[in-house]
């Protein structure tokens, strides 16, 4: 894209800027588009769970225009700022959440070659950036000048800070099994049949996934962990005083981070852009068979990722519309008494498994490039790579 633009545009920095803008736009369109779809899907799923239709009239049979109509309504709403609010922070807070939630997509590969920035510590980066979303919530809740909002903010702070720990541990397990934090490498290791997926690698990764699911739901503030906006207790928690576009910014941030944790789960546990069956390899849709084949392979990978991501989101919606909400002390107990010990135990267990089942540090060295279960081989590979430079 950049090279193409460089041929036509002068000065060159314009070409760079334009190319960057286009790529940003594409990424943003993916996220915002999926937010719109999620919004519609949430209503439909809620409807099905509750034995009703959900949106059925706006825009035809499936109510597909519901989300745009809703967005339009939100944009047209009166923009209220309470008199008691710290208006600067109040205006600013939603964009912190939104920015943090979208920034996570910078390091998430959507396919083998389609990733905005290949970071060596990508898994870590995604976790770290997604964790920043809490700041918007805390600030928004505080700046609203309402006691309910303050309650929501305090709960969010307590909850997110505690759930970062088990979430980090859960991410660490597949990272350790794979031997790298590079999400592209982790994804590529799981190529082939679905038995190569890390969730099926050993019993510990299998357990880890369920702990990850719990912690991910908690860290994106979805029911039954939606304490910060518990509508039956705190009116709407940190969102109480928000309306119109700012409210929808928080809303988009929530869906954005749902998508981010789902994508992360897909890459870490479910093979990422590799389907359950190695179709791409059968049809030779690889980069080495020419750019078109590579493009098609990447497209297939994107479809895989989107399917897995949507599955994660659907599961979260299903959970939300089924379960009652936990109490704040129970949320924290779940984290401290169950999630953290369980995650730590699976971490130790996966480490032991890698050593016992794979025969220790040097066993994975031979097939360090393609197979999963190259825990230490990965590190050795890194070392070899850095040495060769």
């Amino acid at each position: 894209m950049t090279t193409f633009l460089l041929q036509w545009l002068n000065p060159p920095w314009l070409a760079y800027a334009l190319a960057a803008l286009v790529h940003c736009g594409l990424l943003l369109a993916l996220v915002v588009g999926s937010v719109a779809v999620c919004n519609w899907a949430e209503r439909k799923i809620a409807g099905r769970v509750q034995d009703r239709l959900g949106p059925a009239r706006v825009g035809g049979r499936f109510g597909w225009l519901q989300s745009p109509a809703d967005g339009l309504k939100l944009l047209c709403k009166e923009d209220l700022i309470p008199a008691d609010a710290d208006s600067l922070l109040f205006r600013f807070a939603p964009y912190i959440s939104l920015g943090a939630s979208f920034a996570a997509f910078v390091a998430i590969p959507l396919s083998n070659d389609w990733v905005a920035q290949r970071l060596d510590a990508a898994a870590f980066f995604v976790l770290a950036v997604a964790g920043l979303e809490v700041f918007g919530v805390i600030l928004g809740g505080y700046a609203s000048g309402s006691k309910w909002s303050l309650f929501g903010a305090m709960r969010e702070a307590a909850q997110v800070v505690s759930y970062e720990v088990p979430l980090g541990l859960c991410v660490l397990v597949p990272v350790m099994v794979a031997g790298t934090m590079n999400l592209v490498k982790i994804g590529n290791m799981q190529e082939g049949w679905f038995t190569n997926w890390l969730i099926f690698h050993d019993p510990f990764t299998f357990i880890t996934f369920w702990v990850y699911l719990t912690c991910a739901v908690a860290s994106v503030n979805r029911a039954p962990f939606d304490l910060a906006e518990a509508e039956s207790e705190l009116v709407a928690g940190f969102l109480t005083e928000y309306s119109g576009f700012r409210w929808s910014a928080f809303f988009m941030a929530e869906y954005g981070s749902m998508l981010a944790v789902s994508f992360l789960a897909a890459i870490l546990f479910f093979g990422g852009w590799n389907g359950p069956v190695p179709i791409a390899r059968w049809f030779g849709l690889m980069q080495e068979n020419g750019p078109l084949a590579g493009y098609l392979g990447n497209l297939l990978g994107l479809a895989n990722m989107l399917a897995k991501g949507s599955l994660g989101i659907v599961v979260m919606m299903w959970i939300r519309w089924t379960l009652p909400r936990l109490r704040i002390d129970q949320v924290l107990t779940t984290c401290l008494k169950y999630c953290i010990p369980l995650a730590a135990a699976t971490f130790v267990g996966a480490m032991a498994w890698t050593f016992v089942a794979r025969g220790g540090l040097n066993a994975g060295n031979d097939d360090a490039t393609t197979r999963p279960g190259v825990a230490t081989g990965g590190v050795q590979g890194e070392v070899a790579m850095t040495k060769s430079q």
Partner: protein
Amino acid sequence: MNPINWHSCFFLLAAAVACAAALGVVASKNVVRMAVFLLHALGAVAGLFFLAGADFVGAMQLMIYVGGTLVLIAFGVMLTARRPFLSMDTKLAQWIAGTLVGGCLLAVLLRSALSVDDWAGPVSAAPRAQAEDLATAAPLGMGMLGVRVDRLDEPEAARREGMSGYLLPFEIISVHLLVVLIGAAYLARSTRPGEARLRENVEDKINAG
């Protein structure tokens, strides 16, 4: 005209945000806004870490510093955010003294930073522009386990010197962290004087009335 160096551009952007936010922390009176400025300063510093090729440290900065420490501070701010403490004025004399100390320090630091000509530009012929080439996580982890994989290309003598790694500091810091966390929990847990008495009073009243 030389082509624009994008690395420099992003550096300048992050540096400007970091410095402006740091000055904002100093200048603002409201403690909540200070926290917001600090958030931006720390975030921008994380960006500078990425640009300096320390992507693992940058991610750690975002995760632990911004996501953990700063949330903790925001928590503290909200717990103590009563009107009189929200924004506290500093006396002019204190301002003058503070600025004087800070200014002198800045002068010394800038003097020493600018004094070495070699530091003005990159010395290495191969600047590491591509972030994907960076691999700091694994060497860091190995370093903490006592294996200095970053020194493998050095001569034998220098290598042996550095091969002990960071296992001991790592262990010390782990134990230290544990102690600190327990201590913090203990400190924050202590009951507030007066409160127990207050509760007793109320219960008596309820029982009596």
